[in-house]
């Protein structure tokens, strides 16, 4: 009996070991490509860029000439970089609350629909799947081009009887902001709406029923005292994500306002609204100053980390709601 048992146990153990090894192998086969990709295209470039930012690297990405903090100091003294920082902070202060309010509003509306919620969810989410570049080009060439045949100009003519307007090139008033902000709102709102919807659906219905018993109907009162407070963690995550995305703004600015000066033959409209990433892209790829571009990228990263940590502290991210 004992011998039989031990043979059975050994066989079982061997099977379990094989099983474990197979599981580990399959794990690495599936996760491997992702990890390799992450290493090659994310982590190694980050480390390389960080090292490069302490070197004088023009027309080359090999660190050869150590210059310490020169790149960082020069950037802080650079009025153009400073302008872009001011611009992006002002832009974030505007765009973050607007997107927040819009996506929360949409989420509330979609949540209150009894039939066809899936349809509306999908409709508002589809723009998120669209590439920033494609949307920017469509906005620039088709919707807001300066021709009388452009979509926006058509509306101006048929509804207001106004002459066609060069949306992107008019500086007084700065109409290009309308183009920039609408494309971002169109592309982003659906995503945050989904996050809010998830948050909304976690709020127990019993709270609303209790409120109804106490005489509070669904409306502003329940929103202010039940819905919004219980959405706190969701709101904080949304704010964090919105801020990060706002500071990293690049695609729509570069594609709508142009690639910028340098010896490229593109025009100078880029200067109208130039976020730090667009400026740093020019520094690295047109001025060929890779060390300085890398330094700038890390300054922006530090800014984002700082604000994120502060935001988390102040707003109490992660604390339990009740």
């Amino acid at each position, binding site marked *: 009996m004992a011998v039989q048992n031990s043979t059975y146990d050994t066989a079982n153990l061997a099977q379990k070991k094989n099983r474990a090894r197979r599981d580990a192998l*399959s794990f690495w*086969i599936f996760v491997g*490509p992702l990890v390799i990709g992450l290493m*090659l*295209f*994310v982590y190694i*470039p980050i480390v*390389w*860029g960080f090292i490069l930012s302490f070197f*004088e690297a*023009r*027309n*080359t*990405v090999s660190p050869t000439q150590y210059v310490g903090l020169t790149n960082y100091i020069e950037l802080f003294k*650079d*009025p*153009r970089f400073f302008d872009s920082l001011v611009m992006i902070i002002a832009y974030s202060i505007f765009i973050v609350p607007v997107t927040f309010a819009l996506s929360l509003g949409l989420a509330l509306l979609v949540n209150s629909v009894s039939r066809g919620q899936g349809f509306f969810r999908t409709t508002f989410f589809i723009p998120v799947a669209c590439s920033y*570049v494609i949307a920017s*080009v469509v906005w620039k*060439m088709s919707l807001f*081009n*300066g*021709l009388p045949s452009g979509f926006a100009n058509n509306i101006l003519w048929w509804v207001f009887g106004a002459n*066609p*307007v060069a949306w*992107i*090139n*008019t*500086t007084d008033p700065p109409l290009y902001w309308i183009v920039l902000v609408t494309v971002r709102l169109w592309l982003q709102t659906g995503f945050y709406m989904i996050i809010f919807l998830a948050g909304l659906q976690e709020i127990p219905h019993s709270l609303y029923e209790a409120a109804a018993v106490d005489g509070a109907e669904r409306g502003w009162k329940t929103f202010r005292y039940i819905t919004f407070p219980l959405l706190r963690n969701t709101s904080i995550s949304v704010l964090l994500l919105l801020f990060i995305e706002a500071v990293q703004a*690049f*695609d729509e600015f*570069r*594609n709508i306002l142009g*690639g*910028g*000066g*340098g*010896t*490229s*033959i*593109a*025009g*100078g*409209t*880029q*200067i*109208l609204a130039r976020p730090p990433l667009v400026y*740093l*892209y*020019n*520094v*690295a*790829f*047109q*001025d*060929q100053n*890779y060390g300085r*571009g*890398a330094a700038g*990228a890390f300054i922006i990263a530090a800014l984002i980390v700082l604000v994120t940590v502060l935001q988390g502290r102040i707003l109490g991210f992660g604390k339990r709601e009740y």
Partner: protein
Amino acid sequence: MKMSKQFLFTLMTTILLIAMLAACGEQSAQPTPQAEPVQEEPAPEEAVGAEEAAPAEEESSEAGEEIIIQHWYHQYGEDGTFEAAQRYAAEYSEQTPGVTVEVNWVPGDYFAALNAALLTEGGPDVFELQTADIARVKAGQLEPLDSLFEGVQDDFNATALSRVTVDGKIYGVPMIIDPQLVFYRKSALEEAGIEPPQTMDELIAAAAALDTGRVKGLYLGNDLGSASYLLYMSTFAAGTTMLDGNTVAFNTDQNIKMWQKKQELAQSGNLLVGAPTEWWDPSALVDGLAHMQYIGLWATPGMLAAMGDDLGVMPWPAVDDSAQPAVFIGGWNQSINANSPHKQAAMDYVKWLWIENTDIQQDWNLSYGFHVPPRKSAATSADPLKSGPAAEVLQLMDEYGATPSVLWTGAMDSAYIDAHSEVLLNGADPTEMLNQAQTAVQAELDSLLNQ
């Protein structure tokens, strides 16, 4: 159940591996000329370590082995240029055993692609540049080409050669010369009773007089003329250059005045904005959107075909009577990658194409758009350039033509253009902006010359 799970598992793994291999495979250069360039934008961190999918080169400089020469062009606007470039490459490949030339036609932001490629080992062997600027020479990206010019150097236009000569060595073969000026509709000026403007004040007045509301007075590009070449041209027309040896020379009272005048022009409302194409495309003038347009010689065939005798040309007006008008002399040159494994083969190819083969040079310069052949003998014998506006352009080019020094790099461009754009588009103060530009450009120049 167990069997099918295993099977599914194996199948997915195989598919994943095949997909990875396919993704890492070669990409063949199949360019299609696009109407509107769409620009891609990797974040700075990504591109620093990104790998280039360089077409495989049979790396061997042994005689008898097949050598593939990568030849990069930017996307020319004129029809037929891509086919012509391929034709020349094919002709050379046929008559030279063991060597094949592959043409890569780069749409959109050519310099972004080129700069990234030159950082790697898989960069092009032969490529176009506008100037052989000193930053590239110092970084060792360009091969000296003096040996190719033996005996023919005098035949080349001196200004064109100056754009590729650094420290007495030549780093590029001038291929086309692009003079840029202001073209206009003669009948419109006659109707308004004005002469072609000679000074900035006259230009401002002319633009106002020619602005009929439906048709604007002047087109400088959708960015009101913030682009680089017009900026250089107006600097020359203010009686100064951008650099004088190793100091900044553009911060003069005359240049401040020129920027003030340009700001006045930009804010006058007489400039065309929101045109469907940029300044390098003649449709604004030809389609009657504006009466005057800043553009280069290359567009002349199209303009002549549409306007015939009604096409007039003038240099960019002087800032006032104390200075001279200016014509910007631009152009493209062919350079060879100093890190190329097939330097000798590339040099032979470039010599055949751009120094010896005058037929091809004339064809390239004159059959698709109009450019001035850099070889004086070819330029004087070119029939299309002997009459009409084209001949006038040549004359103006000889009289008023100027080009920046090779010490002027892309980084200085950014600083100068940004300052200028602030003045034109954001109404900044020219004095303050020129000071800012001077600081930035001088810093760049100092660090460049101290390397």
